[in-house]
């Protein structure tokens, strides 16, 4: 980690264009993508500076209290290694940074703009595992009865019913449709057990979204997004952002529920060997329930993503 002090490191106006990270050459998709670096709520608003890391690069963040400025203009982010300023956007409750040349915008979540929804950053969890493993775990239902016992699943309801994979070639995204699972307590608002309906969407290598049956309004979905910040290939911060229709539970209750669930996941994630995601066939042994995991790994391979993988093909 860089030891550069933040107080005297003012963002330079001239970016240094020499990129030492070999990520740039090797992994254009990742390097040129937007990645989350902080929860907006955690940054404060009065010239507070903080430090973080993205793709192996140490970054400084400053929130400035500029009256009337656009949200994105209130934040500046710079690299500690060459003092170059970074592209910044504020969206969905998190601050996004692109270290390379952005080829496309931050992923779109149209539901987040619906007036009757609440947006909530439910926590940033630092985990010693490749961010791709964290995304794959997010796409997995089979572990519910064993890892989230009594919440998202319970024995003997362990069967993963067939679901449908859709590859959206137009947008380069991946979906799992018709996912169903029996859950004793699916959410804060679920007083009784219910058979939930899920749809998973992988929008970016490090970002996935879960659309989940909303107990108060069964025809609509709660939206839970997992935005993973790859600190480096073996460490990540998982940002969970929820766009909820629930208007009875408090933010703290909703946050507490998500934190309980994620804490259960962390115990598994830090015990995965190797820490990086294997992409070659034969490294790990999926079954039908893992169709989404297999599709995700193949989707990463097809984009030549190697960052956070074992480089297997």
């Amino acid at each position, binding site marked *: 980690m860089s030891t550069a002090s933040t107080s005297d490191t003012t963002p330079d106006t001239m970016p240094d264009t020499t990129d030492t990270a070999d990520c740039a050459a090797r992994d254009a998709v990742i390097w040129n993508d937007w990645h989350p670096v902080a929860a907006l709520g955690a940054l404060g608003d009065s010239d507070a500076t903080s430090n973080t890391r993205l793709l192996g690069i140490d970054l400084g963040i400053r929130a400035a209290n500029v009256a009337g400025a656009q949200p994105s203009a209130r934040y500046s982010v710079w690299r500690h290694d060459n003092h170059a300023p970074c592209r910044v956007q504020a969206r969905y409750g998190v601050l996004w940074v692109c270290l390379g040349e952005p080829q496309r915008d931050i992923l779109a979540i149209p539901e987040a703009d619906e007036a009757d929804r609440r947006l909530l950053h439910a926590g940033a969890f630092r985990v010693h595992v490749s961010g791709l493993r964290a995304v794959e775990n997010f796409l997995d239902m*089979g*572990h519910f*009865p*064993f*890892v989230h016992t009594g919440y998202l699943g319970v*024995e*003997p309801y*362990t*069967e*993963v019913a*067939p679901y449908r*994979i859709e*590859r959206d070639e137009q947008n380069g995204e991946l979906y799992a449709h018709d996912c169903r699972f029996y859950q004793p307590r699916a959410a804060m608002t679920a007083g009784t057990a219910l058979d939930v309906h899920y749809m998973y969407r992988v929008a970016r290598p490090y970002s996935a979204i879960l659309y989940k049956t909303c107990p108060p309004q069964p025809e609509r979905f709660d939206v839970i997004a997992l935005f993973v910040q790859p600190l480096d290939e073996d460490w990540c911060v998982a940002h969970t952002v929820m766009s909820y229709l629930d208007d009875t539970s408090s933010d703290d209750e909703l946050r507490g529920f998500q934190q309980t669930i994620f804490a259960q996941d962390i*115990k*598994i994630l830090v*015990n*995965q*060997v*190797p820490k990086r995601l*294997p992409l070659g*066939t*034969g490294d*790990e*042994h*999926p*079954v*039908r*329930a*893992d*169709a989404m*995991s*297999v*599709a995700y790994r*193949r989707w990463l391979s*097809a984009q030549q993503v190697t960052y956070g993988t*074992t480089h297997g093909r």
Partner: protein
Amino acid sequence: MADKHHVVESAWFALCGVDELDERAIYHTELAGHELVVWRAEGGAVNVWENRCPHRGVRLSLGHHRGDALQCQYHGWQFGTGSGACRFVPAHPQAPPPAVAVQTWPVQVRYGFVWTCLTLPGELPPFTPIEELENEASPGAAPAQPVRLRAVAIDAASDTVQHALADYRFDYTGFDAWQTSDCVAFEVAPHAVMIEQLDEAAHRVVFLVQPAREGRTYLHGIALGPFAANQRLAVLRHHQQRLNALRDALEQQSAYQERVNRHDIADMPQPDARSLVRSTPGQPAVLQQSVSKPVSVLSSGSGTAVYSGEHHEANLAFTVHLSRSGQTVNVAADVTVLHALRAHGVEVPSSCEQGVCGTCRTRVLQGTPLHLDDFLTPPEKAAGDCMMVCVSRAVSSTLTLDL
């Protein structure tokens, strides 16, 4: 996974006391950079396995003891004692388990310890008995019961630890931690050192060295009797003190060594002689054993059909030509290509046998496959030049495969 490439000497190493496995305990340890999980089935069989579920890589030591199987904490997969073969996948309770197994290692239980050797079965060296411990194990001699010392973890290479044992001293007269009596050290086996006091009592202690990983060693000890019942605790404590002192000295020394190496690598002698294991990068000496488990033909076929939806061709018979061997194999309705091939002695590597993992991907030279898998992408399926022989079938009446 660089640690997999260490070439460990082909020898038996003690891992833990068998009583560590009482009450369904699941013990995890390391040997030459391999993470291991050790457990005893209810029937008494002791298992030494790679501490990793083959499904998604989660450490099995997090899991649960299920009598004659170990259950992974992540998805509840169960692996049976002995073979380590998967016997139940809760996500598919009705389906036959996939032909997947945990990597298992050979086991010996001797002198109250579990031993293993990281070698393939064909190359297994004989167990070298340690005579001094054989005698102690003689039944009926209750006062001769040895005292097993608590294992000590030392952050130093195993060779360094073993050499340092030559200077190990102990003294039961008065159990003074700092008094030394003359002792002599013997190598009683390749990784076992016996220290004997040079007085009439000739007390002896045997140490078993376990190279855990580079720069880390576990040391097991057995103080040989006879001891009076009220003496045993004092013996245990006495050695604990001496071992802690040994550990502190060695760790100080290796920390110093590390500092020196970091600052001036060129002038320092390479610590080859002290390295824990001889390493040959890029040459894995320990090979994964491929495990193929017979799976019922009928049940596997029907499980797939349910998953893949309604295809009226799905249950038709067809013929497969093998371009390399010139063989012709008839695939009956309700029999998979994989099983038909296997029945004719043609083995195609497979794992899930559910059309998901991609292991059995086979090139199609002629004919049109009927894709029933979840592995290939739509463009790959449309190209029609390969298929998953575990579930996919044929639209045409014949297929020619590159086998």
